[in-house]
């Protein structure tokens, strides 16, 4: 299966190295605010750096900041993927 340009997926589903634009952060006001303070908010271009085994944290990059978010949070960050990339999961 491949991801198409324009396909929306969660940060958790993205492949390491894949980039995209944040569309929406699902979840409570608290989470939205904390992510926003770190520069992760709708419209922001992000790149997934890595994920950890056993549904551990996902590392992503926005501008020059790297942020680690828990897997549960990563499932709440909806991203518009940029380019074609084979998808593993």
């Amino acid at each position, binding site marked *: 299966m491949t991801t198409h340009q324009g396909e929306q997926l969660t940060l958790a589903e993205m492949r390491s190295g894949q980039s995209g634009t944040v569309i929406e952060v699902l979840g409570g006001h608290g989470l939205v605010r904390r992510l926003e303070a770190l*520069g992760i908010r709708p419209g922001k271009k992000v790149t997934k750096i*890595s994920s950890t*085994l056993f549904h*551990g944290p996902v590392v992503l990059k926005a*501008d020059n900041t*790297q942020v680690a978010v828990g897997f549960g*949070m990563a499932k709440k960050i909806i991203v518009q993927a940029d380019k074609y990339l084979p998808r593993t999961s």
Partner: protein
Amino acid sequence: MRILLMGNPNVGKSALFSRLTGTHIIASNYPGTTVGFTKGYLRLGEERAELIDVPGTYTLEPSSKAEEVAVQMLRDGDLVINVVDATNLERNLNLTLQLLERQIPLIVALNMWDDTRHRGINIDVAKLEELLGVPVVPTVGVTGQGIKELVKRLPEAKVPKNAPTYANNDERWTRVGDIVRQVQSLSHRHHRWYENLEDASSHPVWGVVIALLVLFATFWFVRFVGEGIISYVTGPFFQGLWTPLLMKLSLALGGGGFWHNVLIGELIGGEINYSQSFGLLSTGLYIPLAAVLPYIISFYLALGILEDVGYLPRLAVLMDTIMHRLGLHGYAIIPTILGFGCNVPGIMATRILESRKQRFIAATLISIGVPCAALQAMIIGVVGKEGPGYVAMVYGSLFISWVIIGLILNRTVKGFNPELLVEIPPYRWPPWRVIGEKLWLRVSGFIKEALPIVLGAVLVVNILYTLRVFNALADIAAPVLTGLWGLPKESVVAILVGFLRKDVAMGMLAPLTLTAKQLVISSTVLAMFFPCVATFVVLARELGARDLFKSIGIMIVAVLIMGSLQNLVL
């Protein structure tokens, strides 16, 4: 005048602070909290201004205790130096705009300026200054570039005319976006070698390999430096210079009597024996200054480097999955590591965790399963004589209890365990100045706090010995000590003294001629049992009375079981 140094975390604030203030730095806690900050002074023409390094914050809408303190401090400041990471303009300007809304005179230090060039970032400083309406000075905290200019322009700090306020966060972010578009342009650049290393250290496989290498190297470094200081500095000093002086004093005091016992202690075979004499001036000074201080120095040096290079958040990511099983998240590894230096700052640092459940578990686990550097120095010194395998048994037992207690608490403590959310700063070359200052603050803190307690403990022991109090206590404690743990009843003295200082307690085990097995059991029991008085006070303050009793209850049960198991198995 009071000047506040404010900015996001990881923007090089401390390095800038150290450049601005010079030598006289004071570490303190914000009144009523355990959130620490440093304070120094800055010469401004004729005036001496107070400069405060405010804890890093992303926004003025606080989401943690440290951020709350930052906002509270803002009320008492006369001027703010807003430290902005030039390589992360957008995120940093969000705080700048919030500060401008507060109507406090502001000047911006555009820090990490040297980093922008090789990251391919060009910033039009004049334009930024015009748009913000306050002075903007490019700086490099680590090298001191731009500091003179910053100080020179401090008087120009101002509240901009008709500074806009924003109805909501979205509006502010839009304005931030506008500003960034107008002042910043990006050009192509190459991936640097250390950026590959950055990516590797949060990689699921390479990250683990790197973590193991780092931990191994740290352990090796701490031992190498610590032992080096003992064999070349503190050891020769005590043996060569201090012993002759004490011997003269001993002669002057007539070789015995009350004062001789208190000050010098008992002569072993006509000589002073620093681990057995137990006088104030012999063992009382030897333990903290000769045996423990070298490891305090080497541990905090290693920790300072790991902190300032930016490695610890990466360790937090790797440990996250495991820590979740213990009812914590990866970030709890940082208070835990601090606890290996001294449990007091470790437990204080549990403040960075979000939920009550996490704080309770983290603090309890630190006070039970994490031996402080002072205790470790003595464990290595005393148990190490029997062979490294026995030291490993002590550490292994502590680690096992740490894991098992964590697993149980995760299931039994009510509350929730939120997920990890943490910024991972880029690797940076360690700012040696900052590391040196931090090391000095921590080491002098140890001497100031530990030395009086060690001396007090030695004095109390001497008095209680004279009054024969210990004999009575030993008889009461005998069933547990001898029956469950297989220890001689004299060891009750050491275990009780452990409440004052664990390193002194460990020193008291040395003259008891215990077997290797007994040494392993007694040092494990000492590490897990009742925390020392300083830790106890902090634990009480952080947890409150109810949780403190729970924590102590868990501790007592755990130590009874662990000591008995060791007695059965070893």
